């Protein structure tokens, strides 16, 4: 941030002295050249993880949910944890593309594309878990969607699990449309650059005949604004409804009114952590450091600091109100969380989510790539444990001490969890290969070629 006289100039959003042609060339390079060795290594690791999950999935489908660690008391375990975790990961994309757009945050241009892609893959990953958790996923469609049938059997509209079906599928649809809409002008650029006939044909079809005329842009801008406005409530609704899965019950530790905004803040927190993890790698592997600068990453770290303290607020407020309520069961649930058999998980959650992000108060640390990479990984772990703590510790000791039980995930739980990471990263890596990872035309719109910096 430099200042001259009485003006404060803003930090440049991309490395100065880049031309429009540079942007197209640099962003399209991974698409137009043969993949690098590093990309293959990443893909092999992801596919390996996915394979482990698939292999573990066979016994799960053959023998049923009994292969997992869940029991009569802790009937929801790692699967629901994973579901909430992945839905949460998907939140950064829509926040960046919708809310930051409405707030005129121009730094979003360099990161929105990959964050939105991440959203879509994360929601796809999340969707696997509740379907597998039905036990007989081949009946899943009958149980999830209301359809007229001779036996007059309907899904339970009063269940938040059913609301989830609608919330998540709406979210997925809108996010996909939003993402694809933003891609069209860029796909057209890729099409125009294509030298090979086959390539030209594929991108021609994908670009829906985009020619970049004034009318096209006019429609595009209007549609983008409308979709941004429509997705903004979705950012809040999806995770709010996911939180209802727990909060509408009367179980101490689940039934608390702060859950909806708290889950949303947590989702944005974990989503940004994942975006930072991925972008730190992607800008390295695909040489995009001029476009995804330290400034972008720093801004995301600030959002993590903020949302980290929001979840901290919720953790502590819940604890306080549990005491304030005077309800013995409520108090027990929280004291048991912090000191009971799952205290280790609780303190992992606390230290990863509340304490670790505090180092982002310091500008130096906030701008250090190795530090933010490590912190983002820690937050990812912490946010996984947050859901684990909420789900498992609330269930494992309820009103009847005779039915208290410990919960140990089995190797199938872990293998399928690992598989979900493989699934997600495989999609992400493929995306990086076939579509532009940075919104080229949006980056160009904030450039002033020939000038020292964007002011």
């Amino acid at each position, binding site marked *: 941030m430099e200042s001259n006289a009485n003006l404060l100039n803003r930090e440049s959003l991309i490395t100065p002295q880049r031309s429009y042609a540079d942007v197209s060339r640099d962003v399209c390079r991974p698409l137009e050249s043969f993949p690098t060795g590093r990309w293959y290594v990443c893909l092999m690791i992801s596919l390996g993880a996915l394979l482990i999950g698939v292999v573990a999935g066979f016994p799960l489908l053959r023998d049923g949910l009994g292969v997992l660690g869940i029991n009569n008391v802790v009937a929801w375990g790692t699967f629901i944890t994973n579901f909430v975790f992945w839905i949460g990961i998907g939140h950064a994309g829509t926040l960046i593309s919708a809310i930051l757009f409405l707030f005129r945050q121009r730094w979003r241009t360099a990161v929105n594309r990959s964050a939105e892609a991440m959203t879509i893959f994360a929601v796809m990953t999340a969707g696997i878990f509740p379907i597998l958790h039905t036990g007989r996923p081949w009946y899943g469609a009958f149980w999830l969607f209301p359809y007229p049938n001779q036996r007059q059997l309907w899904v339970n509209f009063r269940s938040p699990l059913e609301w989830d079906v609608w919330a998540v599928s709406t979210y997925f649809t809108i996010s996909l449309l939003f993402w694809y809409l933003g891609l069209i002008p860029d796909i057209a650029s890729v099409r125009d650059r294509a030298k090979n006939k086959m390539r030209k044909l594929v991108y021609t079809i994908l670009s829906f005949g985009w020619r970049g005329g004034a009318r096209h842009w006019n429609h595009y801008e209007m549609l983008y604004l409308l979709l941004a406005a429509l997705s903004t409530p979705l950012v809040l609704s999806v995770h709010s409804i996911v939180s209802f899965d727990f909060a*509408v019950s009367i179980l101490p530790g689940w039934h608390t009114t702060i859950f*909806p905004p708290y889950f949303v803040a947590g989702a944005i927190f974990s989503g940004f952590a994942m975006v930072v993890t991925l972008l730190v790698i992607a800008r390295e592997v695909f040489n995009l450091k001029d476009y995804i600068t330290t400034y972008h990453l720093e801004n995301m770290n600030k959002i993590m600091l903020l949302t980290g303290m929001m979840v901290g607020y919720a953790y502590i407020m819940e604890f306080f109100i549990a005491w304030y309520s005077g309800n013995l069961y409520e108090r027990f649930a929280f004291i048991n969380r912090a000191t009971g058999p799952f205290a280790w998980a609780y303190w992992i959650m606390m230290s990863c989510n509340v304490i670790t992000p505090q180092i982002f108060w310091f500008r130096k640390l906030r701008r250090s790539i190795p530090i933010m990479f490590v912190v983002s990984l820690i937050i990812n772990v912490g946010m996984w444990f947050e859901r684990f703590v909420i789900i498992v510790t609330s269930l494992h000791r309820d009103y009847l001490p005779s039915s208290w039980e410990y919960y140990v995930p089995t190797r199938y739980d872990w293998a399928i969890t690992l598989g979900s990471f493989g699934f997600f990263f495989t999609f992400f890596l493929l995306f990086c290969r076939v579509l532009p990872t940075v919104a080229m035309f949006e980056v160009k719109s904030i450039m002033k070629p020939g000038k020292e910096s964007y002011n």
Partner: protein
Amino acid sequence: MTLQTKKFDWSTKEKGIFLVLTGIGIITFVVSLFYTHERAWAAYLVGYYFWLCVALGGIFFSVLQFIAGASWSVTVRRVAESFLGYIPVAVVLFGVLLFGVHTLFEWTHHHVVAADPLLTAKTPYLNVPFFIIRSLALFVLVFFLGGRVIKNSIAQDENGDVAYTFKNRKLAPVFILAFAWMFSFVSIDLMQSLSPHWFSTIFGVYCFSGLLTSSLAMITLLVIWLRKKGVLDTYVSSDHLHDLGKLMFAFMVFWAYIAISQFLLIWYGNLPEETFYYLDRFKGGWSGVSLALILFKFVIPFFLLVARPFKRSEGWLVFMVLWFMAAQWLDIYWLVYPTFFKEGPVFGLPEIGIFLGFAGLFFLSAGYFLSRINPVAIKDPLLHEALHHHQ
């Protein structure tokens, strides 16, 4: 860059109106204390909390601009900063409120607490000295730390030193963090503890959403007023008003989101320890008020402010500002009154008079503050961006 500003100064007539309002407030309060003791204090609490929130929100808004590095708001920030002038007045008004705690708060009665194990268990938190400390801590934070930020902003008018902006960027996050906590506790104290058995973890956020809507409304109102007086007309364009309108709209929807989250979860859980709070508000004449709250605080204003031309029209915005103020009043009334008047709503001279008294004090103190400073942060390093602010 040299810009001319016209000082804000009000006519004797305007000042007179606010003085009269204050007088009306004091007289109504004193008279109703004799006739309807409980109602006088309830009305006092509503007025006190309403205007406290407006003032706190203004300070929150101005500090927030530094954290966000926002530039569009530079020209309207001074108006928000002037709300600091009300804080010393609020401290005095809080002192007056202390005479009413015995009437307002069940948990201050020793015999009630002694007979009630739940309330006994809450005494480490719900006791008068700690109650006072929490409110004073909020005042100290707002006046000294928030005031520090505002002081830096005003000092910048002298020489335009960018260092002030950097200082404020350092102070702002600390303020916001502490404010989030302290405001939550003060809201629990003043509003939630009226029904000391009731609890809701979202309550602080609920109050915060109302705070932002009402203070944004007040900022908008004063900005439009100053534009009319020719003080801000060259600085604030309809793009700025549009932005203020968008923020009001956003936080109105945010309120609806928080309110429905709280209500839905309590309704669905159907636990008597929580539902009684809503049941009190659905019985008798209160059901109409509850319905009105949903309609007037969300459903109707949603359609009245959703379209772009609405947010850019001065006249329409003034109408919406008054609407939001009324809706926020209704919300606080809905939080406070059913505790005392179980049969149905009461509304009349005490409510109107006492509320106007607070309004008079607010305008007098904030206006006094504003008349002594530049109405625009004239040497803010981001002012050039604000002046060229377009959608």
